[in-house]
């Protein structure tokens, strides 16, 4: 029984070594053990700003520092940290600036709420104007025969 298990084990090991050898030609540069980790990794490095080339994400920046930080993120992912923990690690060292997404905290709430507020204000204004104009329709004989465009 044990011998069987051992030989199976050796066979599997040999097979994986062989497979490993052939894929040595095509080792993914950012290879993560699972597709989920790879997806998380890509998502994370795309959403952190490179602190040296401040216009680029960690994914796109060619500088050493970015490579370092990518490695760091990779290590943290492999160590089992969650996305949130990784984000907090980065923010605790570099501040909110390293995120492309401004946080929703007291001081930035205005930024996130402005679009919705302006939209609401605009829609209300539009409805008020329409109400006022709709009343004028019958009393205004002009342009009843207009075509479009």
């Amino acid at each position: 029984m044990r011998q069987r298990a051992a030989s199976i084990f050796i066979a599997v090991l040999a097979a994986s070594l062989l497979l490993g050898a052939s894929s040595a030609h095509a080792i993914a540069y950012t290879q993560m053990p699972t597709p989920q980790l790879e997806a998380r990794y890509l998502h994370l490095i795309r959403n952190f700003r490179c602190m040296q080339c401040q216009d680029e994400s960690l994914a796109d920046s060619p500088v050493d520092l970015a490579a370092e930080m990518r490695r760091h993120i990779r290590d943290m992912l492999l160590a089992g940290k969650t996305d949130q923990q990784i984000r907090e690690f980065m923010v605790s060292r570099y501040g909110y600036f390293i995120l492309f997404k401004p946080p929703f905290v007291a001081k930035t709430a205005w930024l996130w709420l402005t679009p919705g507020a302006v939209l609401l204000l605009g829609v209300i204004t539009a409805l008020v104007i329409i109400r006022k104009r709709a009343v004028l329709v019958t009393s205004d004989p002009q342009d009843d025969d207009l075509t479009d465009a």
Partner: protein
Amino acid sequence: MSRFVNRFTVPLAIFAVLVVVFAIGIKDSPQKDLIPSPLIGKPAPAFALPSLTDPGRKVTSAQYRGHWYLFNIWGTWCIDCRIEQPMLLKIKQAGIIPIVGLDWKDDPKDARTYLKQAGDPYQSIGMDQDGAEAIMWGAYGAPETFLVNPEGIVVYKRIGPITERAWEQDILPRLPLTSTPDSASSS
């Protein structure tokens, strides 16, 4: 509606506010590239690094507990660090506060040679060959210098070379008057 506050004057009012914002922006623009450190007021990262000058020994944050120190991140590849070098030597001369160096992504041989030629302002130097330590401090360029108090809290961060002005106006005033040249166990 009032004569001066109506929907026709609102655009002008908003523009006026905008102009103020832009004016402040212009005033502050020289500093716009400097990212304030979130570490200020927080504990400095604990470190235990191999010593550059004394292989086999470690430079640790524990050694500096109870003392003020400057944590200076540098490298031989960094031009601004060479500009900073004379100032650091002056600080060492003054004997008020020790400087702990972090040799960032450097070849140890190059670093040792450089210090022999240019002078060594550091009380101890830790090596950070893979860059992991610098990231812990939130460094994104060199030189960067942190002022750490005896409780291990980061009090101030200087991005770029320390100038006379920075030393006199930003660093010295933060030190207590009775600060004496300490000898934390050096490597």
